[in-house]
């Protein structure tokens, strides 16, 4: 089925460009600069707050049912931070965000300046001893001095991986949540083409992976009437995988709950009604763990009605995350559909 509003080809370009950029939590400068180039021509105002959130504002035409809407997608990705450099030039690291040691062994990583490394492991007597503190990064330095010429304690690295197409699917690093960032930019393209009642604040947030930090301060500044996070979610459609409702290719996932949020029933219903009325493929998301920016946003000030749209994604927090572009397009379609209509007062 063709997308209602999303230009799927353009969306794919955005996902690819964003996913391949560098930007672990707390070190989002490169990805922020890239996204900023895309949103500057689409926004009425662009700003960066004290924590580094990129906030792009698109003014609405107002009228009855016009609200202050915050859309949030996090631009940070998981990464590794150097904590120690030894005499032989090997780097020890701390995880930035959630990492499984088994995923890390043998991976290629890259630092902001392009310095490449691989992840090695100490000799283990038992695979059960595989823990993060038994791993190290090898940047090919002959000794400490050579290593310190290229990295420092505090330098951050991310997976080195290109985005590859596999049918209608894309696989690569950081689809969590650069695919959500791509959704927001594509939505902004529509808001520019056709004005909607609402003032829309598109927030490309920082430090989601380390505890939903950026969205919290951005939401305080914006004080929205309604907020929607756009993020990825787990899927339950792989061999002997988790028992989860979400599947690739079955549409955008309307969040019911995760560990950070119970979606506001009014927001959830708004999304379900709009998807049904316009034939946009959707599925319900109940995630028994994890969280998104909506979890931080809904507790801001005196509370914000919030929900989330998620893109089902396999192999999360690995360099081989996989999603279906049709789900990304459906997410754009549903957001644009909802934003085009006046919204009732959630308190009424």
């Amino acid at each position: 089925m063709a997308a209602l509003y999303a230009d799927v080809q353009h969306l794919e370009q955005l996902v690819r460009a964003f996913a391949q950029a560098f930007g672990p939590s707390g070190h989002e400068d490169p990805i922020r600069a890239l996204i900023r180039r895309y949103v500057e021509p689409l926004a009425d105002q662009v700003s960066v707050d004290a924590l580094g959130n990129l906030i792009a504002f698109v003014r609405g035409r107002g009228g009855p049912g016009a609200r202050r809407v915050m859309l949030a997608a996090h631009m940070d990705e998981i990464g590794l931070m150097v904590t120690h450099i030894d005499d032989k030039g090997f780097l020890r690291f701390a995880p930035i965000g959630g990492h499984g040691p088994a995923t890390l062994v043998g991976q290629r990583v890259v630092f902001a300046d392009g310095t490449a490394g691989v992840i090695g492991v100490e000799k283990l007597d038992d695979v059960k001893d595989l823990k993060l503190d038994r791993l190290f990064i090898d940047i090919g330095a002959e000794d400490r001095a050579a290593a310190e010429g290229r990295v420092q304690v505090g330098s951050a690295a991310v997976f080195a991986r290109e985005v590859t197409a596999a049918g209608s699917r894309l696989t690569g690093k950081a689809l969590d949540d650069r695919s959500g960032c791509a959704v927001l930019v594509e939505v902004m393209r529509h808001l520019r083409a056709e004005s909607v009642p609402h003032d829309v604040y598109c927030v490309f947030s920082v430090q989601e992976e380390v505890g939903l930090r950026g969205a919290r301060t951005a939401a305080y500044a914006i004080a929205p009437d309604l907020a929607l996070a756009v993020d990825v979610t787990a899927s339950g459609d792989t061999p002997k995988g988790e028992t989860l409702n979400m599947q690739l290719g079955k549409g955008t996932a309307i969040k019911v709950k995760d560990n950070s949020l119970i979606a506001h029933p009014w927001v959830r219903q708004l999304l379900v009604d709009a998807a049904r009325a316009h034939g946009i493929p959707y599925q319900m998301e109940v995630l028994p763990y994890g969280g998104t920016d909506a979890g931080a946003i809904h507790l801001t000030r005196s509370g914000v009605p919030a929900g989330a749209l998620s893109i089902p994604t396999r192999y999360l927090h690995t360099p081989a995350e996989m999603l279906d572009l049709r789900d990304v397009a459906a997410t754009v379609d549903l957001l644009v559909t909802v934003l085009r209509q006046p919204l009732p007062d959630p308190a009424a």
Partner: protein
Amino acid sequence: MILRELSEIPGVSGDEARVRARIWEAVRDRVDGGRVDPMGNLITWKGANRPGPKVMLAAHMDEVGLMVTRIGDDGLLRFRKVGGIDDRVLAAKAVRVGPDGVPGVIGLRPIHLLKDDEAKKPVSEQDLVIDIGAASKEEAERVVRPGAYVSFATSFGELGDGLVKGKAFDDRVGCALLVELLALDFPFPLFGVFTVQEEIGLRGARVAAYEVAPDLALVLEGTSCADIPGTEPHGQSTVLGGGPAITVMDAHHIPARPLVEGLVAAASERGIPWQWRRTAFGGTDAGSIHLTRSGVPAATVSVPCRYIHSPCAVMSLQDFDNTRRLVAGFLEDVPRIAARLAAGRA
């Protein structure tokens, strides 16, 4: 030095009044004003109406300790920990109980009376009692009530060449540094904040930062130092004598890069030795300050302290002095650092 006094005052999380009173006495003539907020934070300021970035320096007054939960018929006190303490360090320590500082000892059966395998396991807090020498519940209740705070009875002392030992260096070293730094004058509004309840979840700093609404914040801490046998080099957070430790990441905060770079530059340009804090565990008040309102750029600088969160820590006076010099240098550089922060947002 004021660290000696501050170290010996009891001030477990939620019971910071005596520490606060001593600090206020020391800083009242150095600042333009001060107030105690509803949670008990002491917020002081200098040049509040000056132009320029509003800078908040924070150090927490509270320390880890214990609280009496129940008094047994035998007159022995059951307790729970307040803040993170390793159960292994509790047994057989001298403590002071309640506002009157009733002397007590954390009791443990002597080794002669243990069964074979018992001696091989650490004793959990639930199996330990505080003995204040009372023979019955009635006798104990005359001097202690459930809810009474318990702190370690450790006297401050000098050790070796330029080292000191004592309790509560986490974070009375930060408080002592802040007291000294408030003697200096700067051309911008400076808020010196002595916080409560850091050890149980960075609580005081959260509301204090909301009140102050700073443009940038620096947290002064005592941090772990594990340059001791049995620790792999890459597990050693800091080294004693290596100078102030600058945090690159912990469990609650990724410091703002312009502030981290500002600290490194302030040290390098003045020839002050410094080190990275080379682990990413734990948290400081910066973890709650940076998330206040619409966000606050923040960083943490710490004095390395061996054996923190135990009855007795060891610290180098040279590290303490170098930390004071580093923070003073950072404050001199604030205009430059604020310009870097602004450039990053443009």
